[in-house]
C-alpha cells in the first residue's frame, strides 16, 4: 500500500487512537512532561481530523461527523475557539446547501446539532458577555424561524423548539439576567414538548437555578419536582431530584430524616445504576434526539455519598453541642478524608479529557473548602472562637472572609460595627449581607439601649431592619424558621422595656403582632412542656433546630412575657441558665443567671438562691478579670 494513500477510514481511526490514548492516560498527567505528551496526542488527533477534511472527498454524513468531532476537540482542549467557530459556520453553510437538494430528516437533525454547538456549547466555553449576547441574538432568530414553520413535520420541530428555548434561558442566566431566565424557565415548563424525561430534566435545571440564587420556589414548581418519579426520569435524574429536595430542606433548616430514608431506600434497590462511570446520563428528548447530561457529584455513588455526608453535617451543625446529635463532629472529618481519597483516585478508572478531569478536581477542592469552613463554624458554636479564613482565591474565602473576620472580632468583644458596615455596603450575596445586617443591628440597638447616640443609632437600626426585611422577602430565607424566630426575638428585645433600657418606638399593633409570633414559636419549642400541649402545636412547621443560643433567647423571652405560673417560670429560668453555662458568653450567662436568681428569690427557694449567688459571683469575677 502506498503511504500517501492511506484511506480516510484509517486516518479517522488514528484520530480516535490518539484521543483515546490521551484520555486513558489522564491519570498519569502529573507534571509538565506528561502534560506535553498529552497535548501532543490531542494535537495529532486534531491534525488527523483536519487532514481528512483537506484530503478526501467526503459524504455529507462523513463531513458532519469529522467536523463536529474536530470542533469538540478544539473546544475542550484548546483556546482556538475562533477556529472551532469557523469550522462550525462553514459546516452549517454546507448543510444548508445540501438541504436544498435533499431535505432529509437526518440533515435537519444535523443542522440542529450544529446550532446547538454554536449557540450553547461554544459560548459556554468562551464564557464572555460579548459571545453570550451574540448567541442570544442568533438563538432568538432561530426560535423565530421555528414559529414560521407551518405545521409540516410538526412533532420534531416542537421538540427542537423547546431545546432552543432551553438554550435561550441558559444564555440569559449566563448573562446574569436573572428575572428573564426565571421567566424563561416558567414559560418553558408550561409549554414544553417532548418526552417526560426531558420535562423532568428541565424542571431539575429550573429548580437548581432557583436554589443557586436562593430564590423562592413556587408551589407549582415544587409540585413538578415532586412529580418526578424513577420511572419517568431514570435513576440518575431521580437522584438529582432527591438531592434538590434535600437542599430545600437544608436551606429551610428543616428535619431531613425522611429525605435520608428516601435515599437509603433508593440505594437498596438502585445502587448499581450509579456505579463509577463518567458521571453522565442520556436524556431522551424525543425520537432520536438525545442529550448527554454530565453531573458526576450526583450521578456517581461514591461522590453522591460524600455530598450527602456534607449536607447532613450542615443540617446538624447547630446540634454540635449535643452528644446525641452531633453528627457534624464525626461527619465533617469523614468528608475531608473521603474527598482526599476521591482526589487521589480521581480519573483512575475514567476515560475523559483533561479539562473534564480539571473540572472534577475543582469541584473536589470546593467540597474540601466547604468542609473546612463548616468545621471552623462548628468550633465557633462550641467555643465562641472563629478563626479568620486563609486568604486565597477560592469561592468560600471570597464569600466569607469579611464576614468571618467581623464576627470573630465581635466574639472577642470588639463592638465596632465597621466590619459589618463594609459588608452591608458592598456587593455580596444576600445571605452573607443578611447575616452582617442582623449582627450589626444587635450592636447598634445595644448602643441605643445604653443611650449612646440615641437618635442616630435608632434611625440606623430602622434602616437596617428595612434592609433585612427586603432581603428576606427577596430570597427563600423567609421560609426558614430559624430566621423567622430570630427576627421576632430581635424586634422584641429592641422594642420592649425589660430587654432594653431605651425601647424603640412602636405601635400597639406591631407589639401584638410580634408577641403573637413569639407565642407561636414558644409554644412549639418551649423547654418546659405542659401536659396538655403538643397535640395542637406539634405540626412541625414552626419546629426549630435545637441551637443552644436560640433556645435560651426564645425561652427567656417566652418565660418573661408569656408564662404566668411561678413554678414553671423557675423551671424555665433554671434550664435557660444551665444552657447558658454551655455557651461561653459570660454576659449572657450573667443576664440569664440574674433572672433565675430573681425567680428563685420570689419563689423562696433558699437553696437555689444560695447556689445562684455563688455562681453569679463567680461569673462577675470572671467578667471583671477579663
Amino acid at each position, binding site marked *: 500500500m502506498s503511504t500517501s494513500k492511506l484511506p480516510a477510514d484509517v486516518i479517522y481511526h488514528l484520530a480516535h487512537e490518539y484521543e483515546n490514548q490521551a484520555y486513558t492516560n489522564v491519570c498519569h498527567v502529573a507534571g509538565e512532561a506528561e502534560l506535553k505528551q498529552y497535548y501532543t496526542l490531542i*494535537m495529532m488527533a486534531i491534525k488527523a481530523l483536519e487532514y481528512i477534511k483537506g484530503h478526501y472527498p467526503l459524504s455529507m454524513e462523513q463531513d458532519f461527523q469529522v467536523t463536529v468531532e474536530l470542533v469538540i476537540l478544539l473546544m475542550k482542549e484548546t483556546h482556538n475557539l475562533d477556529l472551532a467557530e469557523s469550522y462550525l459556520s462553514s459546516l452549517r453553510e454546507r448543510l444548508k446547501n445540501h438541504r436544498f437538494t435533499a431535505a432529509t430528516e437526518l440533515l435537519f437533525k444535523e443542522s440542529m446539532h450544529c446550532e446547538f454547538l454554536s449557540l450553547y456549547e461554544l459560548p459556554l466555553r468562551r464564557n464572555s458577555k460579548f459571545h453570550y449576547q451574540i448567541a442570544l441574538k442568533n438563538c432568538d432568530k432561530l426560535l423565530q424561524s421555528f414559529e414560521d414553520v407551518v405545521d409540516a413535520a410538526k412533532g420534531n420541530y416542537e421538540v427542537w423548539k423547546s431545546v432552543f428555548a432551553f438554550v435561550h434561558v441558559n444564555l440569559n442566566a449566563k448573562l446574569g439576567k436573572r428575572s428573564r431566565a426565571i421567566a424563561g424557565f416558567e414559560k418553558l415548563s408550561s409549554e414544553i414538548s417532548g418526552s417526560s424525561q426531558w420535562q423532568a430534566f428541565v424542571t431539575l435545571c429550573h429548580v437548581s437555578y432557583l436554589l443557586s440564587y436562593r430564590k423562592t420556589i413556587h408551589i407549582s414548581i415544587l409540585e413538578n419536582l415532586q412529580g418526578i418519579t424513577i420511572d419517568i426520569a431514570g435513576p440518575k435524574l431521580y437522584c438529582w431530584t432527591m438531592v434538590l429536595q434535600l437542599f430545600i430542606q*437544608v436551606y429551610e433548616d428543616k428535619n431531613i430524616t425522611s429525605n435520608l430514608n428516601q435515599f437509603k431506600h433508593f440505594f437498596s434497590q438502585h445502587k448499581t445504576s450509579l456505579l463509577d462511570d463518567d458521571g453522565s446520563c442520556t436524556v431522551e428528548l424525543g425520537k432520536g434526539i438525545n442529550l448527554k447530561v454530565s453531573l458526576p457529584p450526583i450521578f456517581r455513588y461514591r461522590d453522591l455519598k460524600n455530598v450527602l455526608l456534607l449536607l447532613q453535617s450542615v443540617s446538624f451543625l447547630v446540634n454540635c453541642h449535643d452528644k446525641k446529635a452531633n453528627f457534624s463532629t464525626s461527619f465533617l472529618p469523614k468528608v475531608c478524608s473521603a474527598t482526599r481519597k476521591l482526589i487521589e483516585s480521581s480519573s483512575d478508572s475514567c476515560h475523559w479529557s483533561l479539562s473534564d478531569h480539571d473540572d472534577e478536581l475543582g469541584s473536589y477542592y470546593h467540597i474540601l473548602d466547604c468542609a473546612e469552613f463548616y468545621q471552623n463554624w462548628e468550633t465557633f458554636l462550641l467555643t465562641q472562637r472563629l478563626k479568620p479564613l486563609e486568604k486565597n482565591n477560592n469561592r468560600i474565602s471570597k464569600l466569607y472572609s469579611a464576614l468571618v473576620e467581623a464576627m470573630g472580632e465581635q466574639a472577642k468583644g470588639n463592638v465596632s460595627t465597621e466590619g459589618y458596615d463594609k459588608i452591608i455596603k458592598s456587593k455580596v450575596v444576600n445571605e452573607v449581607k443578611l447575616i452582617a445586617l442582623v449582627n450589626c443591628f444587635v450592636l447598634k440597638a445595644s448602643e441605643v439601649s445604653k443611650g449612646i447616640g440615641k437618635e442616630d443609632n435608632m434611625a440606623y437600626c430602622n434602616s437596617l431592619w428595612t434592609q433585612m426585611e427586603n432581603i428576606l422577602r427577596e430570597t427563600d430565607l423567609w421560609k426558614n424558621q430559624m430566621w423567622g424566630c430570630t427576627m421576632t426575638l430581635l424586634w422584641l428585645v429592641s422594642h420592649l422595656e425589660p430587654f432594653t433600657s431605651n425601647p424603640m418606638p412602636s405601635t400597639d399593633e406591631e407589639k401584638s403582632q410580634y408577641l403573637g409570633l413569639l407565642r407561636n414559636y414558644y409554644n412549639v419549642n418551649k423547654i418546659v412542656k405542659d401536659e396538655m400541649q403538643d397535640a395542637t402545636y406539634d405540626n412541625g412547621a414552626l419546629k426549630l433546630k435545637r441551637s443552644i443560643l436560640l433556645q435560651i433567647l426564645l425561652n427567656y423571652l417566652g418565660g418573661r412575657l408569656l408564662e404566668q405560673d411561678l413554678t414553671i417560670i423557675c423551671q424555665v429560668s433554671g434550664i435557660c441558665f444551665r444552657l447558658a453555662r454551655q455557651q461561653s458568653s459570660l454576659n449572657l450567662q450573667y443576664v440569664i443567671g440574674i433572672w433565675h436568681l430573681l425567680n428563685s428569690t420570689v419563689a423562696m427557694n433558699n437553696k437555689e438562691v444560695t447556689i445562684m449567688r455563688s455562681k*453569679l459571683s463567680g461569673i462577675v469575677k470572671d467578667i471583671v478579670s477579663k
Partner: protein
Amino acid sequence: MSSFPGENTDIPKRLLEALESQPLNHLIPKAGLFDIIGTTVRASMPSDRSAFSTPLQEVLNQSRGINLDPRKSKYVFRRPKNNITMAQSSSTKKIIEDLSPLAKECLAATGCEVNHEDIKFRLESQENHNL
C-alpha cells in the same frame, strides 16, 4: 432583693446589651454550598460515529506513516487550573508508548511537539471581556 452580685458594676443587665459580644452564630450560612453541584451541570449532544468503517489490524501494524500536517499548524492548549501533582511524578510513564506502529510512525513523520508556551490558562485577548 437587697443586693445581687455585680449590681454596681457596668456589666450589662439587659439582654440586648448582653448580646453585644455574642454573634448570632446559630444562623448557619449556606451560600456557596450549592456550588458543589451547581457549577458542574453540563449538557451536550452525542453524535453517533458510524460514517467511517474500522480498518483492519494489519493496516495499523504497518510502519510507514505519513505527515499529517506539512503546514505545522499551532494551537494553544488549555492549562489545567487545579494543580495536577497528585499522582507520583516518579512514575513518568511515556504515555505515547502504547500507540499502534502506524500511529507512532505518523507522529514521527508529522514531527510536531507541544511546548510549554503552547499550554496557557487563557489567551491575552480573552482578558478584556471575560465574565
